[in-house]
């Protein structure tokens, strides 16, 4: 494991030294960093190249994945998009709908709650804030037995909220909305000066106008982070989705991609890798694009799945 080599601590660059240092010194101070970098990049990227390799190997089961790019073809992608037994396009739509609605709902409800916690002083405020801290420690998936029983009972009243329904899955995910990122947003709301609201209030704006037209615009970066994190976490969530969605056409990508390789005797790694690449690319691009914001969110304590 080459990457585990312990590296000596960085030497501080000598800021006064403007002349190009001699070659041996360059190696000692800078050059070795490039070596470490190349090794680290191989470590980081190899599995992704391997994924591309399986995806491009037509009919990849398990036995023909080790020879890198021995035989290249688009068979796996063709299967996903054209075969009548493949629901791939539907799965993408399902995932986008579940992830999209969940993240919009999470952002709106979290932002509204953070606004109330940040701008109003009311009875039970401290209690609710600390209760949220406790509740968010309980991963929703731990309660999957109770979720199953609840949805079975609700399905008899609202068929749309029963088992095998995307709406039900979204509702379950929204249950975690307040717990998930309210603290992250609350902290950010507190950094927006109160004088801004007060000025608007003096001008005759109602609390709703202040919230929708002033505050939400000022906190947009944190909304983007919370929305993206929420999207990624519902994108990656497996247990509850697997429990709620019982029929293949309703699967989200996490459940569907797992089902490709769930059978140890006959795994379809090619389909899996092709689907994974297609699904991962938008997430990857968004992630790199919003990197700066995400990192600021992460350092305030958010966790990505």
């Amino acid at each position, binding site marked *: 494991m080459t990457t585990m080599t312990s590296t000596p601590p960085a030497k501080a660059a000598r800021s006064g030294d403007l002349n190009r240092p001699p070659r041996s010194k360059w190696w000692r101070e800078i050059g070795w960093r490039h070596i470490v970098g190349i090794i680290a990049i191989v470590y980081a990227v190899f599995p992704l190249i391997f994924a591309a390799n399986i995806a491009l190997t037509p009919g990849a089961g398990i036995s023909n994945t080790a020879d890198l790019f021995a035989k290249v073809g688009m068979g796996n992608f063709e299967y996903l998009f054209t075969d009548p037994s493949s629901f791939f396009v539907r799965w993408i739509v399902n995932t986008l709908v579940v992830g999209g609605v969940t993240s919009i709902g999470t952002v709106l409800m979290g932002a509204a709650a953070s606004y109330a916690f940040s701008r109003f002083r009311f009875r039970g405020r401290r209690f609710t804030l600390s209760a949220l801290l406790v509740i968010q420690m309980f991963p929703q998936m731990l309660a999957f037995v109770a979720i199953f029983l609840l949805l079975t009972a609700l399905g008899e009243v609202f068929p749309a909220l029963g088992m095998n329904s995307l709406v039900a899955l979204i509702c379950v995910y929204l249950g975690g909305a307040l717990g998930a990122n309210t603290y992250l947003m609350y902290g950010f709301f507190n950094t927006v000066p109160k004088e801004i609201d007060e000025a608007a209030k003096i001008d005759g704006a109602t609390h709703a106008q202040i919230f929708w037209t002033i505050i939400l615009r000022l906190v947009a970066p944190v909304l983007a982070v919370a929305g993206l994190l929420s999207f990624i976490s519902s994108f990656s969530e497996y247990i509850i989705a697997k429990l709620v969605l019982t029929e293949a056409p309703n699967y989200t990508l996490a459940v569907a991609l797992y089902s490709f390789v769930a059978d140890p005797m006959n795994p379809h790694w090619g389909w899996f890798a092709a689907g994974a690449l297609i699904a991962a690319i938008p997430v990857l691009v968004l992630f790199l694009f919003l990197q700066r914001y995400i990192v600021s969110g992460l*350092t305030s304590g958010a966790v990505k799945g």
Partner: protein
Amino acid sequence: MYSPARNWGPGFIAKLIIMALIDAIGVYGIYSAWTVKAMPIVIVMILLVLVANVVYFARRFVPAKYILPGLIFLFIFQIFVMLYTAYVAFTNYGYGHMIDKDRAIAQMQEYNSQLDPNGPSYQLTMLAKGSDIYFGIVDDGVAKVGTDAVALEPLKGAKVADNKITEAPGYTVLGMGDVASRQKEVTSLRVPVSDDPSDGALGTSNATSAEVYRPVLLYDEAADTLTDTESGTVYTDNSRGNFRAADGSKPPNDVGWRTSVGVANFARLFTDASVAKPFAEVLAWTIAFAFLSVATTFLLGLALALVFNSPRLRGQKFYRVLLILPYAFPGFMSALLWRAMLNTQFGVVNQTLLGGADIMWLQDPWLAKLSVLFVNLWLGYPYMFLVCTGALQAIPSDMMESAKVDGASPWRQFRSITLPLLFIAVAPLLISSFAFNFNNFNLIFMLTGGGPTHGTDPTRPGGTDILISMVYRVAGVDDGNPDYGLATALSIIIFILVGAIAAFSFRQTRKLEEMA
């Protein structure tokens, strides 16, 4: 009613429309919950509709207007399910104990019934309503109709000829052809004579006459016992959700029911050898896994952050983007990908990288643990790299300058300035990363499935199972042999452990902040 100075702007109209929709859905929900007699849902729905209308139409309760939507979802889909989980942990709910006591007794009586040779026999008319089949008979001149879920009841307006129903209002009379096509359904149908199961039930073998089948097991409500009328054995409620004879033997075709068992599930986790030993092993591995994951990812992330934090290094951006790729790739997909790569026979690690080696990465219990940690290192170091880079850049440069002026060696600068300042910034993140890995279900489930498992028993935890994947295993979602009581008891323990970690973390963070 006069309402003070409503501003009929677009906002107010939007509110009216949304509230009208919510009220419509609410009223529909209350009505349909009422029709299926789901009283708790009726009560909750009424409360929700009332609260929503009061909060959004009164001028007061301004903070509530903002918190309510999130709070409602939180209450139903998080707090309620948490409490329900806690409740299930104190019951025996699971395989063999899925239904309530009355239905369990009724089922046992139905499974253990016998044709009464001295009982009456009735001329039978097969009836249908919707998709359900009904029996129609004439008892003492009174036409009666019933099916398995509805005991025999007198039916007004039925036409009777020769002690046999010929027409029944609201039902269609089935002809021989219809009956023949649903033969199995007809012969297995048992129609209770009355609401008391011990009165027996009507059954038929030929669809033309019905006979009384009497239960072999008689339930005595006063004594709460079940008596076998053939052998005379008396079975009593063992308060564990079963009827048992004095010698512990089961009644024939035993059916159990859901009941409270106190702390029995928790006691099993610590005393029952078949559960306690695997539980202790899994607990130890969970803590080791979470700790080692944090330690390895942090060390690698910190090392890389230090390496690439040199201002004179060219291509920093390039390195950074490529290095965080594993983190941007969705985690569950990476875990599955590594499963393919670590396959013993065909995986690329053995075949290509190690030149045809035969290492059982995921089958040997210890190698599987190592593999899990290694894959988690790949998944997790970019996070630590990002966080450490951020923290390093936040260290004020004048501090380093003055240390240099004072003649501190680079190692000394690192140990006395960089590391302590970095630690204050990342300590809370290390703890939340620990808590995250403590419940890192996706990695374990996707990479090893908790395995390698011990042969045949699917409920016994495997070599890499952590607590949360053990909950999934015990709950038996995949193999249809669920023990929800035990699974939820485990969930409660995880909750307590994670809560303790979090409480500890808050105190530590505060201490660190005070030190700084």
